[in-house]
């Protein structure tokens, strides 16, 4: 039965020792420990959050990069297309100009040829008239008596001249 009756000596010591341990531990251990735990937990939570944020940021940057790349690609395509068009235009223009120049050259050539021809023709006419004068001279010199013969001869000469 005396097992169930608390002894005052033991009560006293237990009270004293437990109180001292409680105070020492509360001040020097539990306070710093719980604070350290709380700070660390907060830090871990923050780290996780910031990691999440960084991940999102990275995804955004990645998407941005993709967009920039896409834009660049589109721009390049546009530039290429424009360049092609310009090149084509230049080609077409060059073709047109060439044609015009060629036409002009042709026309020049033609007019040159024409003038040459005319010159040549006038030369020929001059030659013919001088030849005719020569012939006429010759005829006059040889046979001026025979009328008929004269006439025939003239006709013959005229015919020849007309052909030319």
């Amino acid at each position, binding site marked *: 039965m005396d097992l169930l009756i608390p*002894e005052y000596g*033991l009560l006293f010591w*237990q009270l004293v020792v*437990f109180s001292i*341990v409680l105070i020492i531990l509360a001040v020097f*251990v539990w306070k*710093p420990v719980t604070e350290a*735990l709380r700070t660390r937990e907060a830090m871990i939570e923050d780290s996780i959050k910031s990691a999440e944020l960084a991940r999102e940021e990275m995804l955004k940057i990645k998407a941005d990069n993709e967009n920039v790349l896409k834009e660049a690609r589109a721009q390049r395509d546009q530039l290429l297309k424009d360049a092609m068009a310009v090149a084509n235009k230049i080609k077409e223009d060059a073709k047109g100009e060439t044609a015009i120049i060629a036409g002009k050259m042709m026309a020049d050539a033609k007019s040159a040829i024409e003038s040459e021809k005319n010159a040549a023709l006038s030369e020929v006419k001059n030659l013919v008239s001088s030849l005719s004068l020569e012939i006429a001279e010759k005829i006059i010199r040889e046979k001026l008596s025979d009328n008929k013969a004269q006439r025939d001869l003239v006709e013959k000469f005229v015919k020849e001249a007309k052909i030319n």
Partner: protein
Amino acid sequence: MSGYIEKSGYIENMRANEYTNTYKNLIYSVLICLLSVFNIQETVASDGGETEKFNIGEMINHHIKDSHVWEITHGVVIHLPIILYSAPDGLVVFSSENFFNEGHQEVPYMGYVLEHEHISRQDGVSVLDFSITKNVLFIFIDAFIMLFVFLAVAKGYRKNIGKAPKGIQSLFEPIIIFIRDEVVKPSIGEKYQRYLPYLLTLFFFIWFGNLIGLVPGAANMTGNIAVTCVLAIATFFITNLSGKKTYWSHIFNTPGVPWWLRPIILPVEIIGVLTKPVSLMVRLFVSITAGHIVVLSLISLTFIFHSWMVGFGSTVIVTLITIIELLVATIQAYVFTMFTSLYIGMAVEEHH
């Protein structure tokens, strides 16, 4: 007495077959241990024919009760200091060795008499005994281990700020977090931080005390009602001093009870306030003391039966019981902390 006759018949039977049917005997020995009741006094005839008295009840009582000497094992005794106060002498301090003569008999010293661990004055004047008894010594040891361990743990937190725990710090951190997150926080709620230091100290004091008590030769410190009484009183005061309006109105103005039932309910409620710490006190005391009694009783069987068979059987069972006791040591510390948190939680609750 019939149980005794049956048992002695059993012993004779066993002795006859001792070396012929070993396995069967081993099973019997285990069964005997299981069926035995503790606290039996037996007189067993030794081999020499002389009778030798072995009083288990006395031995067990001697172990589980407090003492002014620490008998680690038979014959190895540490004499502890006696601190007494009485009006004529004032404060007196001396070793308990003075109470024993060469023949280990209790003798009076300076007018004081030690009888059945109770010190009185020969002249009848009342005396206050504040001696460092075996249990007080173990309270000191428990406190010392706690301070040693947790100051080291706190040092770890100062050293590794914001880093992963190391060494002894990482051993106790999960337990501290377990108590905080699984026991204290859910029971008390938001205001748990005010009570956390007390509850952590409580848990580790009981747990370490229980574990120290399992060491052979150690005292049954947490199985002493004075020790559990102080812890229960601390819980009682903390609970009631932090009681909020809801808590007191629940006691004095129990909701949902008709007015004519109030005179019956009020005493019940007040008894309820008192039974909470009493249940804490008795639960821890009983579970730890019972564990010690069971282990000692089983060991005593060997000395009752004077048989190595029984010794083998009881050793096996004692080993198993000790493993269970390790579990009980932890569970009881957990339960005490858990209930204390629940009571505080009930007291600080603001509304329903």
